[in-house]
């Protein structure tokens, strides 16, 4: 009997060794990187034909996402400001701090459902998911590193030599491969299992308050925060007054058209519970403050979008109902999805 136990123990020890030798991180299998598009969502805009997700590619992207090697002095990673528990926003930070504790000028956006985005950043200046990561890497206030130097560092790193070869079958390490691997990781960040989604699929029920909130949301908010992605990918002036210390022109800086000044991308409201504080500069701490802003027409800027004017009045009871509905957009399955966890913690 003891022999049998010893044998089983030996085998399991051996198996765990083999498994950990193959993959030292949280075990991801091929089926974990399969692209499961939610039936209710439109066709994605990202072209997977040019960058099909593979297990090794995803794992490389995951490693890169959590690695400070991308920054000049190895102090900042993507994850520093994009935290999993906050749907990859920067929880409780109005503006984020990057390298040398430098403060940015905008609130960190959540990373979710990116493959349905036609452009990135609050001003839509980035035109493709793959080139997005170049911006924080080279930004003087975020990672302050050159792409050339990042690639040099990766090329002499034994672990990356192994991971790149596994992902791309040969020894070439270049920025294209690095960026495509990061995109493989971020493209799978799909949030489609909130209580709202389950309610829509008939798998969950809403309270009367949440139902009221949904009805109000559809009347007053959904024209810009369009279901099921809760954004229409447009840029709008939501009426908040200019922060004179930041003087952020928003979309106007990109298009260089005066009519686009002070417009910002309509953010998705998915996981809004966790992505506080709110607005492009993080000026509101609570969802209730945001709803109050849209109801308080006297406080809006002169250039406010006509859709905001159409909202009209929102009673205090209605505000509470709207917030109750917004909380149904929290997707715990996504927030605790281990595939997106830090690979350096086992």
């Amino acid at each position, binding site marked *: 009997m003891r022999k049998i136990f010893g044998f089983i123990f030996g085998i399991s020890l051996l198996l765990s060794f083999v498994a950990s030798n193959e993959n030292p991180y949280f075990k991801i299998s091929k089926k974990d990187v399969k692209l499961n598009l939610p039936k209710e969502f439109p066709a994605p805009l990202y072209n997977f034909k*040019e960058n099909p997700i593979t297990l090794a590619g995803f794992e490389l992207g995951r490693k890169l996402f959590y690695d400070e090697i991308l920054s000049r002095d190895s102090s900042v990673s993507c994850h520093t400001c994009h935290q999993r528990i906050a749907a990859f926003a920067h929880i409780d930070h109005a503006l984020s701090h990057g390298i040398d504790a430098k403060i940015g000028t905008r609130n960190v956006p959540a990373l979710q459902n990116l493959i349905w985005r036609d452009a990135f950043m609050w001003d839509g*200046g*980035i*035109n*493709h998911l793959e*080139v997005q990561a*170049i911006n924080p890497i080279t*930004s003087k206030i975020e990672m302050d590193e050159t792409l050339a130097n990042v690639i040099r560092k990766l090329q002499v790193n034994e672990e990356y030599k192994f991971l790149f070869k596994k992902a791309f079958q040969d020894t070439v390490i270049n920025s294209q491969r690095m*960026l495509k691997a990061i995109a493989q990781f971020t493209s799978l960040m799909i949030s489609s299992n909130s209580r709202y989604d389950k309610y829509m699929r008939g798998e969950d029920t809403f309270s009367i308050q949440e139902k009221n909130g949904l009805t109000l949301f559809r009347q007053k908010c959904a024209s810009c925060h369009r279901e099921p992605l809760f954004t229409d990918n447009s840029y709008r002036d939501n009426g908040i007054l200019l922060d004179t210390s930041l003087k952020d022109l928003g979309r106007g800086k990109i298009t260089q058209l005066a009519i686009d000044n002070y417009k910002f991308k309509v953010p998705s409201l998915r996981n809004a519970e966790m992505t506080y504080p709110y607005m492009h500069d993080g000026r509101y701490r609570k969802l209730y403050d945001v709803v109050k802003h849209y109801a308080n027409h006297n406080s809006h800027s002169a250039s406010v979008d006509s859709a905001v004017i159409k909202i009209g009045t929102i009673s205090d009871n209605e505000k509470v109902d709207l917030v109750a509905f917004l909380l149904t957009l929290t997707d715990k399955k996504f927030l605790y999805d281990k595939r997106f966890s830090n690979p350096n913690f086992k």
Partner: protein
Amino acid sequence: MLKKIWFIFALCPLFLLGQKTNENQLNIEFIHKVDSQILTLDTAKYFNALGQPFFITKFKYYISQIELINEKGKKTESHEVFLINEEEPASKKISISKVKDGEYSQIQFILGVDSLRNCSGAQSGALDPIHAMFWTWNSGYIFLKLEGKSTESSATGNIFEYHIGGYKEPSNCIQTIHFNLKSPLIFSKKSSQNLTIQVNVAELLKHPVVIDFKTMPSVTDTKNAKLISTNYSDMFSIQ
């Protein structure tokens, strides 16, 4: 076994035929000048149309979509993108292979990168963003970079920098440069032809828009880039 050998023999002429049409090659050399002088980085002093003295520290640009056109309007196209950089002499000599047999009387190319490649995600080779010819905050390639110093410049460190790019209207800076060749380029049976293109940096600063280092020392956005891009076409000439 016999069948296999026959098969290999049968392939041979095809292989030779394929090689023949692939071997025509056009070599282009870009010679950078400032008016009559050969461009020298850092040390040579030049004067612009306003008489302002300046030194050039950087000059690089993208050439792509090179097309040779024959009398009948038929083309040989190259989809390769070349990054020409004064700092790297080898980059100033480029070659296009697989030129089809024929007599070509016109050549044209794009200064810049076509719009599709500006929005197709991460790329490699000449288009690797590692070359610092990519705008990170407003995606798209920088088609041309001219940097230098002038005591007349109002910018910090007396520098001037002109980063020209933008593929979207109304700030589309992609320009096609076209030439009618005095003597046609004739390709037949593995021939190789050479072409020299002169690039006069001074033209970039003077016609039709005269660049004043005092009032416009730095252009790194698409709107003003569009303005300077109108100066492109005079810059190139073929002897």
